[in-house]
């Protein structure tokens, strides 16, 4: 091993990711570690991955981006001590909702029959003709009976009294059908108003 900037047998990105996430068998893991500990180039690439992973983790923890997540993931957030405000919205139903400054996450469970669905799209519908935002091919587990949507907490905290909608669409061979529509009657919390 050396510290030259050009490595004769660089570790590829997939190997580094698998290593970082604990997917390698013990022998491969040991070989990977011995290599990057002696290699400037590969340790720099691993540093890049570690930095990216740290950034994703921080953004996720801060509820910084919209995301469709799993039920199990919500449980992990709760287990890690995060304050998660949850709303369950029935098929074609509505919910009165708010968020408070002490909340870390706000998640919406959209109940939906998903058996046989091959592709699912999620549409945010903004009020008064302000347009729509469509998220195509969202991940889902058909057996779960719905999807869980996490919305950035700062975005929701900044909302005035407003009615928003989400729509789930099944897409198949170029045609689509509405699976369900979900209405959120949002009111700012008293603390958020202060």
């Amino acid at each position, binding site marked *: 091993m*050396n*510290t030259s900037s050009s490595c004769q047998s660089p570790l590829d990105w997939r190997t580094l990711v698998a290593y970082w996430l604990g*997917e390698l068998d013990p022998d491969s893991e040991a070989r990977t570690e011995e290599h990057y500990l002696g290699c400037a180039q590969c340790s720099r690439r691993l540093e890049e991955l570690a930095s990216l992973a740290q*950034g*994703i983790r921080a953004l996720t923890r801060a509820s910084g*981006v919209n995301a*469709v997540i799993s039920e199990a993931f919500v449980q992990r957030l709760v287990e890690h001590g995060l304050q998660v405000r949850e709303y369950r919205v029935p098929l074609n139903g509505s919910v009165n909702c708010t968020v408070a400054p002490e909340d870390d996450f706000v998640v919406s469970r959209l109940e939906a029959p998903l058996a046989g669905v091959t592709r699912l799209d999620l549409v945010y519908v903004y009020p008064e003709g302000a347009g729509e935002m469509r998220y195509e091919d969202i991940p889902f587990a058909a057996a779960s009976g719905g999807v869980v949507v996490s919305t950035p907490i700062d975005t929701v905290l900044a909302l005035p009294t407003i009615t928003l909608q989400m729509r789930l669409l099944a897409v198949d061979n170029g045609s689509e059908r509405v699976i369900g529509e979900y209405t959120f009657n949002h009111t700012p919390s008293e603390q958020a108003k202060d």
Partner: protein
Amino acid sequence: MPVADPITPTDDAVLARRVAQASPETDHEAEAELCRRFAPRVRLYGLRHLRDEAAAADLMQQVILMTLERLRAGALREPERLASFVFGMCRMVVLDLRRGTARRESLLETYGDALLPVETPQPDPDHERLAHCLERLPERERTILMMSFYDDMPAEALARELSLSPANVRVIRHRGLERLRGCVTGGDS
């Protein structure tokens, strides 16, 4: 004291020899260079195994101190195998840390003055850019990256949560990471 070999960018063995040959004196230049090279890598090892920045910093300090200690004592017979030597130290200290039997205090007392401040890379501060790039990813890629790296979850476990195959998770994860890297580094804004 022998004349020091010049440090070239390609030779860790020179560093190891210089530290050993200088004993009982101290080759400050060689030891500082050894710290500069190896400390960030040992920190990565620590982050991977301990998943904690403070614990990784602790590991880094202990491994570098122990490596210097062994090198000064002439315990490394094959200087060309310095990386393997450091790897062995890393494994041993992680086990020690997990058992709570760290030798940190006594090592610091003996060798603390040899340990120069080492710059370790800091997390990318441009979270705004990263958030922008993450938002632009296709939904599946974003979900899988967030759920993978929030608590370092392997593909097998994530696949069960999302009703996908592990191979599918790896493919989506790889695609997402490549796209994210491209966006963050400015190639794809």
